[in-house]
């Protein structure tokens, strides 16, 4: 399927997701919220900040706050290999979600999303907007506003 076709099929009931992998788990971010994908380099630590804040970095002249998604999801840190980051915009500010790898763009019908299973880890459930059943794997929808919003109200969450 070409990009064009993708766009055409992406009607009102179809949502395009950028898939990312964090700790082996497939996640999907609505493509409308993803501004860019980049390699986080020279991240400056921000002392005293919430543990999930990986630091701040310069992305083409903009200062981006990097969020360590592994830490946000209470996963062990990545042992080795290059981390990637997804640039998103939230309330007119730039954030970078530091993830393991970026996958592809999937177009999925909104109707096929299922609610979070009731036994999902609460810390995951609070940032998940549902689950898509794909061939052989599950994709958790990342709810960006809940993901970041929670960090504003409780800046010291999961200290």
């Amino acid at each position, binding site marked *: 399927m070409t990009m064009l076709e993708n766009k055409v099929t992406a009607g009102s009931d179809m949502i395009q997701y950028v898939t990312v992998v964090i700790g082996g788990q497939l996640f999907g971010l609505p493509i409308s919220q993803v501004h860019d994908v980049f390699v986080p380099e020279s991240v400056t630590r*921000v002392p*005293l900040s*919430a543990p999930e804040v990986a630091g*701040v970095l310069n992305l083409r002249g903009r200062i981006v706050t990097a969020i360590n998604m592994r830490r946000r999801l209470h996963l062990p840190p990545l042992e080795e290999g290059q981390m990637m980051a997804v640039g998103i915009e939230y309330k007119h500010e730039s954030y970078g979600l530091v993830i393991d790898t970026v996958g592809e763009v999937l177009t999925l019908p909104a109707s096929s999303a299922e609610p979070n299973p009731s036994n999902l880890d609460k810390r995951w459930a609070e940032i998940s907007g549902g689950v898509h059943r794909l061939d052989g794997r599950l994709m958790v929808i990342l709810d960006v506003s809940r993901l970041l919003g929670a960090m504003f109200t409780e*800046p010291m969450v999961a200290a």
Partner: protein
Amino acid sequence: MDDLLREFITETNESLDVVDVELVKFEQEPNNATILDNIFRLVHTIKGTCGFLGLPRLEGIAHAAETLMGKFREGAPVTQEAVSIILSSIDKIKDILAELEAAEGEEPQGDDSELIGKLEEMSAKADVAMANGGVAEEEPALAEDPAQPAETDSGPPDQSLERPLRPGEVSLDELERAFRETEIEVEIAETSVDEDAADEAIAEAAAEEQRATEKPKPEVTVERKPAAAASAESQKAEAGDKKSSGNSVSNQSIRVAVDTLEHLMTMVSELVLTRNQLLEIVRRHEDSEFKVPLQRLSNVTAELQEGVMATRMQPIGNAWQKLPRIVRDLSQDLDKPIDLEMIGADTELDRQVLEMIKDPLTHMVRNSADHGLELPEARRAAGKPEKGKITLAAYHEGGHIIIEVRDDGKGLDVEKIKAKVLERGLATEAEFDKMSDAQIHKFIFAAGFSTAAEVTSVSGRGVGMDVVRNNIELIGGTVDLRSTQGKGTSFIIKIPLTLAIVSTLIVEAGGDRFAIPQLSVVELVRVQHNSEHRIERIKDTPVLRLRNKLLPLVHMSHLLGIVDEAKAEEAFDADNGFIVVMQVGSQTFGVVVDGVFHTEEIVVKPMSTMLRNLTMFSGNTILGDGSVIMIIDPNGVASAMASHASSAVTEQAEEEAEDLSRRADTGQNAISLLLFRAGAPEPKAVPLSLVTRLEEFEVNKIERSNGRDLVQYRGALMPLVYVNEGDRHKTDGTQPMLVFSDSGRSMGLVVDEIVDIVEDRMNIEVGSERPGILGSAIVKERATEIIDLGYYLPQAFEDWFMRKEMDIQALTKKVLFVDDSAFFRNMLTPVLKAAGYDVTTCGSASQAFEMLENGAKFHAVVSDIEMPEINGFEFCESLRRDPRFRNMPILALSAMVTPASIERGRQAGFDDYVAKFDRPGLIAALKDVFSGEMGVAA
């Protein structure tokens, strides 16, 4: 709120500010027609636009004010009263506008009939005044005559004819309404263009109307046609005139939203940063072909930056705009004629800075008017012109702008400041001796300081100058003052031109780099183990000796919690590194960093909201090398420093706090004192608890026998004692005296006058060598002598203390008396001595330990409970632990006698617990323990 309304509000607010200033000017020069025209035109525009936008309240007030001003134009005398009422209506308009803005375009409800009534009344008065004279010569000046368009020297055509309408005429308001109803497009255009264009629009509308066939009031138009046409013509002429003269500037400027400028500024900052990056890259490559074009880019960027910065610049006059009005009002409120002079109003500075200094400046001008300038009589007496003068001056100096607020008033009163400082406990008399007047003047910037004897509505609420100083310091400025008694005071404010670019010092701590604003950095000190500067420790608190002062230190990585525990300790222990000496407000401290790189000019970028809760950083920025760096907020460090220090010494602080409370329990405990005068005018005091009774005796009852004065008192003879030897009792009337009784014996201490009984802390500050006086203490803010009863009692009965079964044994008993309060030591020692004990005193438990350790032998110990460091309980407990003192009688002496404390005393090992002031009780208790001891021994 629609754009039209927003535009209107912005424009009207601006116009109103101008009107304020102009009106004050006008009041002083009532004959200046140009000023009046200006005001009139502005108010008229406001009125007109309000009508268009359907804001009846605003329109009503503006109309009434305009009417009154119309009278002035026609020659009515300008009275202060009238100007005041116009000013207050302008204020009302402002209020309504503010509400309008807050309510998103909804005109607030309210009744302005009172104000309008006043305005109308004033207009009527003006009419009367005019009728009495001045009308005739003013008449031709009115632009009503269509045949004389050239007559419009008084500004735009007179659109509201402030006279009864002649037959066939109709008011211009109605005419305008007619216009409005005919052509809508034109009206909208009118509101959005400036008033010149507005006038033209009316003219066009008039023309339009002439062509229109169905007119709401055809007869009006027909009648008015020549006039309207003529006025339109004259307007055009007028407009042309103006364009050629002063108003040309406004046509060359456009209104740009601040956001747009801010954005532009950010983008230019980015460009500057990118250029810096490029320059750095090129620097590394010799002979790069980029060099020349980059140089060009660099120059262009610099120019662009300058240009954009210039758009943010505004004349400081904008911040002064409100001042003439404020001074005028103050001058009236305070009955002081004041002249406000403004120099250098066109000096430009950053918009942001401008906003920040507006309030401090206003406050300072208020202060000058209120406190600085004297009343006219005082000025005359001082040989100064009656009219006070406040001067505002602004000029550039280096990268700073200097603003001076100067008055020619009485200057600061050093004595008053001193008194206030003493009262507030900010400094002591001794410290003053070392200070110059200039240093003392600076106290007015201290928190909560206000020298105005009375709080006035204008100023003097004590939140003044410290807030001013804080606001100025917040933007990296300084404020200084010079004052000469009788000549005046001037405040000198020095502020940076812009806040957008900050010079910072790049330092390293814990492996990360941080930027510290240079403004708060006083100096850098290199510390090394063997150098003159080295880090010393008090307990675990690091300090630095810097020019005979101790500087508290904190390691930046500790502050920021980025300590790599093992490593940091090492680094800290090695005592090598740099100390950044920072000053924030009055707080000076040193921040230890691992390394110092260089200084860099940076553009502060706000932090992400997610990080804004971090008080330690004020922002972040991108350095020349492309990396992001956090900018340290000196204020955050200062407050963290305070809490850091406190956590390190929490225990200590707690102890100190306890000490304080203990101290408060003892020497400084509030006790009742009897104040009296005897022999000398200075007040004397004695603890009330020692006095048995206050008596007055008829002088003739005083008998003399055996060389001393006596009175018969309760069936016995009571000897009288005088405070000073050789004093006499009064010769007539009654003689007051203090009666001290003990075991049936009484003594009368003759006093001149009993002054008062007060509850106060008795803290003997100056000891006395004079017999009979323990020392001096401050009681009711007066130095008061505390008399020593122990000296007087034996004067009455030599055996006062000895008469009780004083035996030889007692004399040989050595008693150690421990009390931190000098008063009680002085008070009770004679009592104990008189009872036959050999008394040794000491001021603290540790001293007592020392004495005991050194082998001093005592038969008993009398110890105070509430003492600093080691209290009585602890003292007793540790004594009891020592086998040598296990059986020694120890008595507790306390101001606080409660069952709980007695129990506590028993547990600590005290043999008895006696209340202070209970002298007989103490003697009896001592006797008891010795007899008991002897009993045990026997």
